[in-house]
């Protein structure tokens, strides 16, 4: 018997339980798909999804004081990490509520009965008339959430990369699963996939260069190496640059934003909600951790980079959104602009900036889910009605829906007494605390321009006479209503009484390394 050359790593399974729950639920979901009959799958998948997400959230809450590096330093479960995971799980629960909606579309849910069927073929029609439903999306969704949780807590560049892929690969498929407008949906999936794979190649090469520089992929080792020795300019600059490109792509920052409008427009609304809310939160979580922990030693270099990107992103998103005629595209450009505002917080490299960014993400995440819940509701027989002029007169026909949408628009336009106002205030304040007045001025100008197109939506809904054939919002089932109510409530409450949440975020402290 040879001596053992390695010792078993010590792994605290209790601390990792949230990951295990969600990941295992995904695997069980696939097994369910394999063995359970067509009609039995959906209830089981729903139980699995909601059970695992709520269970993981519960375990997270119970575990909230168990902080530390787990799995040999590959995963950092620290205050911000727990906050991000909790936020992702909450957003995922809301998204799951949207995904389980079956009342809006007369044919069933928002997803194609079989994504591989030819659009418009007899095959597809037959599947629809026979009332087939596709339930594979649930395990895909859970895998993606699993990847997100891993992504925001990765403390090792390899885990970061793998988590990124676990998060993204299911998303590429989910983007192509819209029941209506199949061609657009497929195109969105193709573009998302090609560009996503392209960007992860960049990210990976950046990881390789940083590995070459420091001899490790651990964040802490890289941080020490960057702090210790100068020199090796090419490896550091190249590594930081390519790594940033990969992360900024997921955030949708200019000039890596090009996929955002196309993919948001083509994907089914619940999936778009998932991408716009949860993916953005996740990508910012990872960006913050990488920048603050691993690359903290060279922050003098990436700070100006983020200033420029943030400025470009805010201005570009706001300006182009003005020229949009499609609701989903407009929200996509708006989400680009919002990413710019959050980048202001990231670029400060202070704890204050971290808190401000997290608060902004909380506010933005819930608002976005609400927006897409409503976009899914405004529809006719052919699917969602996303042309802006089709929304005319919604205020008359479905006042309650229009008022909630108005609240979300006001929040994004950062009007006072909505979450968006406090969020923007905190972000600007954090930038001022490091004397970055210039970026704040750009931000204020961009938010003024942005307010214009948000308010235009409100005007269209309430003041424009409805055109022929523009229907009221369809009546959703309780799940969508619940998701909508929660997001609207959070949007208002965070605007009026943000203090408890701000306290919670501040108590979370900073990243562990």
């Amino acid at each position, binding site marked *: 018997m040879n001596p053992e050359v390695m010792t078993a790593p010590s792994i605290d399974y209790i601390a990792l339980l949230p990951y295990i729950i969600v990941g295992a639920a995904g695997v069980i979901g696939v097994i369910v798909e394999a063995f359970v009959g067509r009609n039995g799958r959906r209830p089981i998948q729903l139980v699995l999804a909601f059970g695992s997400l709520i269970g993981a959230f519960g375990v997270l809450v119970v575990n909230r004081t168990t902080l530390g590096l787990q799995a040999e330093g590959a995963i950092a479960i620290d205050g911000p990490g727990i906050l991000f995971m909790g936020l992702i799980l909450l957003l995922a629960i809301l998204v799951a509520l949207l995904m389980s909606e079956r009342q809006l579309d007369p044919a069933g849910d928002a997803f194609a009965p079989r994504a591989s069927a030819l659009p418009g073929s007899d095959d597809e029609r037959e599947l629809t008339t026979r009332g087939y439903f596709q339930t594979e999306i649930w395990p895909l969704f859970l895998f993606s959430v699993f990847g997100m949780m891993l992504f925001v807590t990765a403390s090792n560049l390899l885990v970061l990369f793998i988590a990124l892929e676990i998060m993204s690969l299911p998303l590429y498929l989910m983007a192509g699963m819209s029941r209506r407008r199949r061609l657009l949906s497929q195109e969105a999936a193709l573009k998302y996939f090609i560009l996503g794979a392209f960007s992860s190649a960049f990210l990976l090469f950046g990881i390789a260069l940083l590995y070459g520089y420091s001899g490790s992929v651990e964040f802490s080792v890289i941080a020490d190496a960057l702090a210790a020795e100068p020199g090796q300019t090419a490896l550091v600059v190249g590594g930081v640059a390519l790594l940033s490109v990969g992360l900024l792509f997921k955030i949708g920052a200019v000039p890596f934003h090009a996929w955002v409008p196309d993919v948001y427009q083509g994907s089914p609304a619940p999936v778009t909600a998932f991408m716009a809310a949860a993916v953005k939160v996740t990508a910012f979580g990872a960006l913050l951790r990488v920048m603050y922990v691993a690359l903290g030693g060279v922050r003098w270099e990436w700070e100006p980079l983020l200033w420029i990107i943030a400025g470009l992103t805010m201005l570009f998103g706001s300006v182009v959104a003005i020229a949009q005629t499609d609701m989903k595209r407009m929200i996509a450009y708006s989400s680009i602009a919002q990413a710019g505002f959050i980048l202001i917080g990231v670029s400060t490299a202070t704890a204050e900036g971290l808190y401000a960014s997290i608060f902004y993400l909380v506010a933005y995440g819930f608002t976005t889910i609400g927006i897409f819940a409503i976009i899914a509701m405004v529809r006719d027989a052919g699917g969602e009605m996303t042309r802006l002029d089709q929304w005319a007169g919604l205020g008359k026909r479905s006042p309650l829906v229009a008022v909630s949408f108005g609240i979300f628009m006001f929040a994004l336009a950062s009007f006072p*007494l909505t979450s968006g106002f406090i969020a923007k*205030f905190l972000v600007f304040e954090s930038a001022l605390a490091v004397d970055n007045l210039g970026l704040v001025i750009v931000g204020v100008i961009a938010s003024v321009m942005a307010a214009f197109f948000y308010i235009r939506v409100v005007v269209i809904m309430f003041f424009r006479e409805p055109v022929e054939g523009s229907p009221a919002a369809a009546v959703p089932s309780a799940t969508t209503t619940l998701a909508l109510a929660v997001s609207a409530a959070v949007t208002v409450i965070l605007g009026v009484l943000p203090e408890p949440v701000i306290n919670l975020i*501040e108590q979370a402290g900073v990243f562990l390394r």
Partner: protein
Amino acid sequence: MIGNGAVVLSEGAPSLEPLAAATGVFAYLWLLIALPLLGAAVLLVGGRRTNRWGPYLGVLTVSLAAVFAIVLVVSLLGLPADDRAVGQTLFEWVFVGGFTVPAALQLDQLSMVFVLLITIVGALIHVYSLGYMEDDPDRRKFFGFLNLFIAAMLLLVLADNYLLLYVGWEGVGLASYLLIGFWQFKPSAAAAAKKAFIMNRVGDVGLSLAIMLIFITFGTVTFDSVFAAAGEANESTLTWIGLLLLLAACGKSAQFPLQAWLLDAMEGPTPVSALIHAATMVTAGVYLIVRSNPIYDGTAFALTTVVIIGIITMFLGAIIGSAKDDIKKSLAGSTMSQIGYMVMAAGLGPIGYVFAIFHLLTHGVFKANLFLGAGSVIHGMHGEQEMRRYGALRSVMVITWITFMCGYLAIIGIPPFSGFFSKDDIIHAAFEQNIIIGICGVLAAGITGFYMTRMVIMTFFGKPRWPDDAHPHESKPVMTIPLIILGIGSVVTGAALLYWGNIESWLEPVTGIEEKPLAIPTIVLEGITLLIVLIGVSIAIARYRREVPVLAPKGNLLTVAARNSLYDDAINEALVVKPTYVLSDGSIFVDERIIDGTVEGSARLVGGLGARLRRLQSGFARSYALLMVGGAVMVLVILYLARLP
């Protein structure tokens, strides 16, 4: 970088008493805002169910607020002069890193007078709207918006810090936008709402930057702490803050160069013009400047700029008022001019603050009176707004005519009408400060006399010029009663505030006061001012008196009279006031082409830029990839440059 980020705090300057906690009746201060807010919520959320009784609810909430405001002022009078400021913290609103902004209200002498103006005039205008909007299918929504406005405006004046003030500031802007565009089916109304919104956003940029700057300079945004520390901040910072606040005031109060939206805002229903665009919201800029007086005290440059902006707007508004034939637009020009007066007074420093507020109050009353009178005329004329189609209305609209005359005499400053006292005080203060400013004030008073007389003659005197099928009639009591109350107000407010209310010593704890000796006796100055006003009045009478031809015309009496009237105007224009017209046309040109052009041009520029930039999104995945590669190269270059020593 402006400001040093250092937190300078010192224990209260002598004029700044710490706020007493709200007790007794003041503990219900929040009700002032909550009442109209509740009304707005019920009306806007309740939907059609509230159509029938909704408008009455709207009137009720504001009236209750007005009654409560009176209770408050009586209680405040019962306190010793130095303790007349109470604060009430509702809850901790923003709390981050040792920096707190409570959602706290503050009722002091300055806020109190504003609360009175807003609630009482607001209540009267609500009542009036019951009649004016009677036939509008959407009047429930109208009252909801009006209530929303009242709530936001009260929040604006009751806030005890800049951030909460900003909430109110945005709120009134929103309500104003909704109300200007209330008749959205008119494209002009939609365009006007948009214009007002865009121009106000420019001002809002000023306010948000000012708040940022205040925060990094003082480390707080609460009025008390900021003002206590204002004396120790360096002057250039104060100047910047002052100028940014002035920019905000210019946007909201329609001051040069952001004044153009106010004329277009007249597209809104007339009660809106009276309440928001004459009496209350447009004076928020003056409030902001006066409230921030400790900041302006430290910066002579910003104060001088305030005076200059005030003077320019004062003349610009007066000249526009003289040239417009639309009765509401003419009044809007007048509003602009009168606010110019107030801004100028505020720019005089401690000499003028009190009188700026004094004039603001009297103006709020008599301008609401004039606008509601104009609304009554428009209502009686079935929506006609051209003064050239009016004439001789005094015989058919007696109450409107009499009340309008009260407002008229008040605005041109005939003793003992209210405008006399306030305007004279401003002119007096201006002479104390600088003789040129004084002369400007007197001249503007003269022009006021001219355009107001013109308006009155064209509307109420002369021969009727309205078409045969128009049947002008007096409005219902629900409209005339507020008119009568405001008419009486126009007569007595000035004297009452000055002698009975003792406004100078009332406001003194907030604004401070200062007297300088004057070379000429007060009575002489008053005489000169009155004389100039009367000259303006006489020119107007001379120009517009001879509307009816002297010689009996041949042929069709009506046609010739109409033609002659036009002829008359043409001669007048050519001979008497050609220069004035050139000037006013010029100013309108500047107004509409250059300044509007800039605002709309920049809006169009942004839109056009957006339309061009979206072409970048070609739909080809490979071009997106190329963009990414370009971006990656950019990132590399930036990082490399940042690494260079």
